[in-house]
């Protein structure tokens, strides 16, 4: 499979604090990568550096051979190609579900409104929210909001999808409905980089697991070797913190 995203020597510092320290990662088309690590290890920052929401101090991020961070040209055209969904959903509260979904395609991609609506309705149907098309975000549950946020990102036809702890703010019984959507996206071959604390989900969805600690990639591998045969002590310790036996 061909490489779609390349991250080399990415370094992010806030003054003296090094958050990401010369991180390298190559992502193939259709690959699902799951990043795990303790809070504050830099995994969310890593995602934010990929679509240039954060400036980086060293290294570069390239999408399909084009350097996107540090960005030379127009940032917005790069971000069109990389979708991102956040922990806090961030639907636009003054717009209905449907309006939320078509805003960027119509304004940014200049897609015909009717066409955008048609596509939006199909996507809503797919995630079981067609009946909510005219609801405002405050009328939805957390899980519903997050499903809308995911399909809103899909409306831009991103080449890579970044999911930043998208179930972290949800009530436990709503986690499943959101993760099921992600799993179905993985099955249709979407390239995704996912940050999550849901290890069972990670195991089910990941092609490759990555463990970040202290701003560096400490260990990576297939879910099978990652969970069953962790090589480093730090990963062992991290995985142990999730079990209760």
């Amino acid at each position: 499979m061909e490489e779609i995203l390349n991250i080399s020597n990415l370094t992010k510092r806030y003054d003296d604090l090094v958050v990401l320290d010369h991180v390298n990662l190559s992502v193939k088309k259709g690959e699902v990568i799951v990043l795990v690590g303790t809070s504050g290890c830099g995994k969310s920052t890593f995602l934010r550096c990929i679509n240039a929401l954060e400036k980086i101090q060293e290294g570069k991020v390239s999408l399909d051979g084009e350097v996107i961070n540090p960005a030379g040209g127009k940032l917005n055209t790069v971000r069109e190609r990389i979708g991102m969904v956040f922990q806090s959903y961030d639907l636009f509260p003054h717009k209905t579900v449907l309006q939320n979904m078509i805003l960027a395609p119509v304004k940014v991609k200049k897609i015909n409104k009717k066409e955008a609506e048609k596509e939006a309705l199909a996507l809503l149907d797919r995630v079981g929210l067609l009946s909510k098309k005219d609801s405002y975000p405050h009328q939805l549950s957390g899980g519903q909001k997050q499903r809308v946020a995911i399909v809103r990102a899909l409306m831009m036809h991103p080449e890579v999808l970044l999911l930043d702890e998208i179930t972290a703010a949800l009530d436990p019984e709503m986690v499943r409905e959101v993760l099921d959507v992600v799993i179905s996206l993985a099955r249709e071959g979407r390239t995704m980089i996912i940050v999550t604390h849901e290890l069972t989900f990670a195991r089910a969805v990941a092609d490759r697991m990555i463990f970040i600690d202290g701003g560096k990639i400490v260990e990576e591998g297939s879910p099978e070797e990652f969970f069953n045969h962790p090589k480093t002590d730090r990963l062992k310790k991290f995985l142990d913190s999730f079990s209760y036996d």
Partner: protein
Amino acid sequence: MNAEVLISYFPLYGEAFWLTVRIGLIGIGLAFVIGIVTAFFSYFKVPFFSQLSKVYIELFRNTPLLVQLFFIYFGLPKIGIRISAEVCGVVGLGLLGGSYMAEGFRSGLEAVPKSQTESALALGMTRGQMFFNVIFPEAFSLSVPAIVANIIFLLKETSVFSAISLMDLMFTAKDLIGLYYNTTEALFLLVLFYMVMLLPVSILGNVIEKKVRFKMFGA
């Protein structure tokens, strides 16, 4: 209170009412535009213009309208700029109101969570698209209570226009009292006409406030 006096005064108050409303509305419209533009400059920290906005806001927020009107009406002619009392009223109200509106919008803009900005940017919007489609509409509905309060405040501030001999409600009342000494009737009509002007604004403001709140937060 003498009903005949009230009736005979009524048309004079009517005229003054429309003058006050006209200058008030145009002035507030101007204030609105100034407020949005200044808030835009400060939000995007546009070099030079954001500093200029700050100086403007502090200057006009911290001086009384009467002083500003005197400056425009009596001061500017000294350097050759001569404008009519009406234009002076509009400009004065616009400049004072602009500084209040700017602060109102700023409070709204600052209350929009930063994550809204990021999710708009992450969808590929330019900063302009983000501002006009996402941040400003949200900030606007958050600012509605402050803006309604400003509008009522500014309409009431028109009462100092009499000082630059604009025949507004206050001027009419003072004039009539000076001429005929029917103090009770003159003051009664003054209060009545101000209420007629401001009560609908206040009620309408409440309705709008509830409407936009409901849409955003369902409260």
